[in-house]
């Protein structure tokens, strides 16, 4: 049997007719920062609830720190840290009171846990008398992380810690996680932001209860099935229309200030395809810059998820 800190095998959970998790399997290594990346409704929260022993699976198994999530429920609870997706602290208690409360629930104290939370707690300590409900979004998040860490857990579960948080605070939060990982903590974190996948050691792309792929972020691009090109030009809408009518087009998506275009001709040299596309566009949407690019995680995600249900309807 694997001695990995987290082993999930064929985990399935239904709520009525809705399949929240569909035979999910994954394994997280010691001191790994592992990301669950995917949109809302993918099953990420259900997976966290099963792993933290709050919900029972319908089928499959999961072992956390070698303990079974059904049989060893109480032993698991003492050893995991969990930050739920919704802000779950007491808004009428102060920063310090919240932290003291969570420490006492686990039979410890702020003082005993101080060395592990210090790098994060130092940033909010000046506000320790403030009510948690009156903190800014970024500070609430840091307090919640401290509360999940104060009992020195052996594995940390973070459910969408950066959702609804601005780009700058998100960046700071990932730097804190990198620090925790460096101290040897195993971390499972979920996010709907594809660009955050690069911050993880490995990621599972998850959509509608299924794992689409598991790999190191840099290798996920290689799973993109066709040649991919960046297209830039003056009239984005005209370019999109023209490319979608192109006989070799597989997909056309806006990506920031460029378009990502994938082409069905996998056996042709990318530069030759680019030249072809350029001349095709010249007559329809004006001059365009077309160059081959390496697919990113969001490209791969979209290719693997295929047509969403609404497009098929």
């Amino acid at each position, binding site marked *: 049997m694997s001695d990995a800190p987290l082993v999930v095998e064929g985990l399935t959970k239904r709520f009525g007719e809705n399949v929240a998790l569909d035979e999910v399997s994954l394994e997280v290594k010691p001191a790994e920062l592992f990301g669950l990346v*995917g*949109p*809302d*409704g993918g099953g990420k929260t259900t997976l966290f609830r099963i792993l933290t022993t709050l919900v029972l699976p319908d089928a499959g198994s999961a072992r956390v720190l070698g303990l079974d999530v059904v049989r060893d429920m109480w032993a698991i609870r003492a050893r995991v840290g969990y930050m739920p997706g919704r802000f779950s602290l007491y808004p009428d208690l102060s920063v310090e009171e919240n932290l003291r409360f969570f420490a006492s629930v686990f039979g410890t104290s702020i003082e005993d846990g101080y060395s592990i939370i210090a790098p994060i707690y130092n940033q909010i300590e000046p506000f320790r008398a403030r009510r948690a409900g009156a903190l*800014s*979004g*970024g500070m609430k998040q840091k307090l919640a992380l401290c509360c999940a860490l104060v009992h020195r857990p052996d594995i940390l579960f973070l459910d969408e810690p950066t*959702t*609804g*948080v*601005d*780009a*700058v*605070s998100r*960046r*700071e939060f990932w730097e804190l996680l990198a620090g925790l990982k460096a101290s040897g903590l195993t971390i499972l974190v979920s996010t*709907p*932001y*594809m660009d955050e996948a690069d911050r993880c050691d490995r990621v599972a792309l998850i*959509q509608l209860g299924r794992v689409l792929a598991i790999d190191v972020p840099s290798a996920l691009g290689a799973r993109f099935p066709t040649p991919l090109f960046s297209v830039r030009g003056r009239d984005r*809408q005209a370019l999109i229309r023209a490319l979608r009518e192109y006989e070799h087009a597989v997909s056309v*998506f*806006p*990506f*920031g*200030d460029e378009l990502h275009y994938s082409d069905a001709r996998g056996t042709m040299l990318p530069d030759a395809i680019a030249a072809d596309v350029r001349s095709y566009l010249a007559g329809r949407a004006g001059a365009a810059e077309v160059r081959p690019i390496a697919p990113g995680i*969001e490209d791969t*995600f*979209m290719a693997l*998820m295929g*047509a*969403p*249900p*609404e*497009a098929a*309807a």
Partner: protein
Amino acid sequence: MTLAIDVHELTRRFGSFTAVDAITFDVNEGEVFGFLGANGAGKTTAIKMLIGLLAPSAGSATVAGCDVVRESDAVRRRIGYMSQRFSLYEDLTVRENITLYGGIYGLSNEAIRDRGDGMLAALHLEKMAKERVAALPLGWKQKLAFSVALLHEPAVVFLDEPTGGVDPITRRQFWEMIYAAAARGTTVFVTTHYLDEAEYCDRVSIMVDGRIAAMGTPQQLKEEHDVATLDELFVRLARPSAAAHG
């Protein structure tokens, strides 16, 4: 060109704290305007003033030609609004939501039926008309909410983080709906935490500590500040100390 939104020195103070500090900007008719800023920069307070829900402490603004203080009722009739947090009633069916909002905006029963049919056809939601909204996937909900916000054909529509948590394909389909609305002449005022989406706007502003720290087309802003992406500019403006150490 006609102005859809015209804001002069708009200010809102809460006690000694100035949430919105004398901001001035305008948005053209049919423009897609991205209103960006870090959490706590004052975006929500500014939007509340523009949609007539919060009185300014100083300054003035017109939306769709109406003064947001003196004519706030008229403003609310001429705008549409949707947010990630609240949009539709989950316990009502798709059709009931359309009827409810149509009624609130004073549309005739005939108009509600005709526009509702057109909307459901455009969204491929005909078969879901009698389903409770709670049963729809998030992406569907958000597209439906956007269409409902346009039901009364408002001059300006305010979208507050409309795509949060939505999958990457649906997120892009949502932006195609935004472009289609703008092409019909609707002015779109949108906030987002996805900075790739900021690139899809005709113009964007970035709010920092209650003020507008940068405004222009995405291209202009990147050239002026010599950055490759708006994400880079956002980080630099919103938290200078964070940008300094990477």
